[in-house]
């Protein structure tokens, strides 16, 4: 079953001579429960796609169908600094009108799921980058979304922390049966996590290649299979970049 369908999507920012075409004739389908990684050089409109799917922005032309609630995560955790970690996780439920007792119970359970129990009363600035992203993940889960949109969520973290979070994310996504669209520019990360890797060309963003990842899980980011796929995808990206540079 398809939960996200973008057909003939164009997105242009600005108008007249300063107009920038971010996406051109984009066709994209994501099935329920699928983990899709979008990869491409910066400026290929990856974040724009997530904004469109999240409903934060409208396409210039084309249609976008999204079946299910979405939650969005960024490279920065974007936790609210004036709230404790627990209050941050609770906020989406408050906005949705969930009763207090239920909110409390679910917050505790969610913080446990992302291994932040004991940090509920800390403020975001008191946590490390990796812990903040765990908090952001718990907040995303608190939105009761079926679709998780992630915009380079681990891009600012060190390799060790990222590795741990990959495993945790994989487990949590499987447990909850979520559909994930994961934007990254890290090829290995895409090969480590994705069921499918979609390569986008820069300016304007179009789908230029799709790789189905057949590697069995659990995967390791340093395994030969992941490395070999990453090399193939990197080669594709290199050709893209060269073609773009010659244009």
């Amino acid at each position: 079953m398809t939960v996200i369908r973008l057909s003939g999507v164009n997105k242009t920012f600005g108008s007249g001579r300063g107009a920038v075409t971010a996406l051109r004739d984009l066709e994209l389908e994501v099935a329920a429960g699928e983990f899709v990684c979008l990869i491409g050089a910066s400026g290929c409109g990856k974040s724009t796609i997530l904004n469109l799917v999240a409903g934060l922005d409208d396409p210039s032309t084309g249609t976008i169908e999204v079946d299910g609630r979405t939650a969005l995560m960024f490279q920065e955790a974007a936790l609210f600094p004036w709230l404790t970690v627990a209050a941050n996780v609770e906020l989406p439920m408050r906005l949705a009108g969930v009763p207090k007792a239920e909110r409390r119970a679910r917050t505790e359970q969610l913080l446990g799921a992302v291994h932040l129990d004991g940090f509920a009363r800390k403020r975001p600035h008191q946590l490390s980058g990796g812990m903040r992203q765990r908090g952001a993940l718990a907040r995303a889960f608190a939105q009761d979304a079926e679709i998780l949109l992630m915009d380079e969520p681990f891009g600012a973290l060190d390799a060790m922390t990222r590795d741990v979070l990959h495993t945790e994310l994989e487990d949590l996504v499987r447990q909850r049966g979520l559909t994930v669209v994961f934007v990254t520019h890290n090829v290995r990360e895409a090969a480590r996590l994705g069921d499918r890797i979609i390569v986008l060309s820069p300016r304007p963003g179009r789908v230029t290649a799709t790789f189905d990842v057949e590697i069995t899980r659990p995967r390791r980011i340093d395994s030969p299979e992941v490395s070999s796929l990453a090399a193939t995808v990197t080669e594709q990206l290199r050709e893209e970049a060269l073609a773009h540079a010659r244009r």
Partner: protein
Amino acid sequence: MLVVEPGAPETPAVEPGLLDDSAAVPEAARGRRGAGLGRRIWFATWPKVAAIAIGLFLWQLVVWSGWKPEYVLPGPAKVFAELGDLIADGTVGEAISITMRRAAVGFALALAVGIVVGSIVASSKIVRSAVGSLITGIQTMPSIVWFPLAILLFQISEQAIMFVVALGAAPSIANGLITGVDHVNPLLLRAGRAMGARGFTAYRHVVLPASLPSFVGGLKQGWAFAWRSLMAGELLVIIAGEPSVGSLLQNYRNLNNAAGLMAMMIVILFIGIVVDTLCFGTLDRWVRRRYGLLGD
């Protein structure tokens, strides 16, 4: 300006990395803090004490030099003796209570006006282009130039003083709010929108809390303006039967009581420092610490 004093109480930062390690960190930090309390108070205090001592000594030097006769420029000993007398006979207490009541009412008025004007300007582009720069313009006007008009409008009265105090402080408060709303991190707004906070809900849950540090900065600056306006007002608008700090100052000048005059100046300086550092400084630091803006 914000300065983090070395050795100021710190919230123990959580070490990145393993969870088990980080639990041990606050423990160690707590031990260090307890032992250093006396030392910290000493290090925070002695430079101030030394500065005051040097200031008093320089003052005394000028008096000793015989530049002006002592009935015009009395030395610290005479002034502090006079101050002691004025405190003992209740003059200072009464004056402070009158002045601080005015300050409180005037500041509250400024707060109401500042918040209303600030939120309207922050939320409407048209209003902003119309009066945005006017607010800053009024802020730069020396408040004393409002007094002739205030006296025409309200005669020699409490209202005349309040009018100018409110006018002095309100622009800073409004500007603090406007700047805060303008500089909300767009990422936080996006995060809020993505979880369904739009319109008023976004204002209530994202924009207002995010602009709090800037708003508090505006309050602090507003207080400084209010206090100056109030002192100018009390010197100009002297109401019979209301011996405020400013009117006493003016009174002692008329009576050629230099020691009393300087004693009142010390009172004014003292109130300014106390309110600024203790009230607004503490509030400011508390907010910044909560928001993680102190870099600890």
